[in-house]
């Protein structure tokens, strides 16, 4: 899994690519934690190139989203595709997180 960080306006965007599984989910969580430690309260996660996510990855999404929410922010997810989209739909996490079709709309939040 690779994570590239960029900034659009006042929003930090993490582009997550590859596989989020039992081995790599902790790395994703650590990257998000380090953003939170910098004082960032809202994150945009671009999953266009995430080919795989298991329940271990879902744990990380829920844990980080709850932390951001407790600080008054939120986790915005965009460009879900393939297995990742299926997994979010089956677990109804697509109704828990704000999901967006593009990075731009996630940054704006509409």
């Amino acid at each position, binding site marked *: 899994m690779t994570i590239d960080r960029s900034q659009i306006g006042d929003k930090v965007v993490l582009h997550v690519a590859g596989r989020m*599984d039992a*081995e790599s989910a902790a790395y994703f969580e650590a990257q998000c934690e380090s953003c939170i430690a910098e004082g960032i309260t809202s994150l945009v996660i671009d999953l266009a190139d995430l080919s795989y996510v298991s329940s*271990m990855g879902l744990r990380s999404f*829920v844990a980080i*989203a709850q932390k951001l929410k407790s600080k008054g922010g939120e986790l915005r997810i965009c460009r879900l595709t393939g*297995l990742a989209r299926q997994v979010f739909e*089956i677990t109804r996490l697509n109704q828990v997180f704000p999901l967006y079709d593009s990075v731009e709309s996630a940054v704006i939040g509409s």
Partner: protein
Amino acid sequence: MPGTPQSLTLTAKPESLGPVTEFIRKGAREANLPELHVRQLELLIEEILVNIWRYAYPAGASGTVMVTYSVPRPGEMDLEVGDHGMEFDPLTAAPPDLTLDLSRRPVGGLGVHLLRSFARSLNYRRQQGWNRLSFGISANP
């Protein structure tokens, strides 16, 4: 020969996920499974192995895990994952409440739900000290 079962036995530890995934990918190629089904299969195997590390061999107990697959016909695979750890039937887990909002959602508890959603003919049995979880995956209508 089509349908001949293939087995891999490894130490039950997180580092075994990679070799097991490679092993079942070989079967998926034999079955000519589409890419999305291959990923679903990888997810099923990961969810089962994570449960084995957590519940069958808790507190660092060592043990083995055996993965067997066969290809009954193109587009389909039958699999069985066995371990000889503590008796654990993941199918007895209570279904998660998927209607909860973010603040009330537990972190975790979705693995078995994914297992039930993607696997066909999911079946658990305890046999001569082994947990045996069998299931199928099919790309056929």
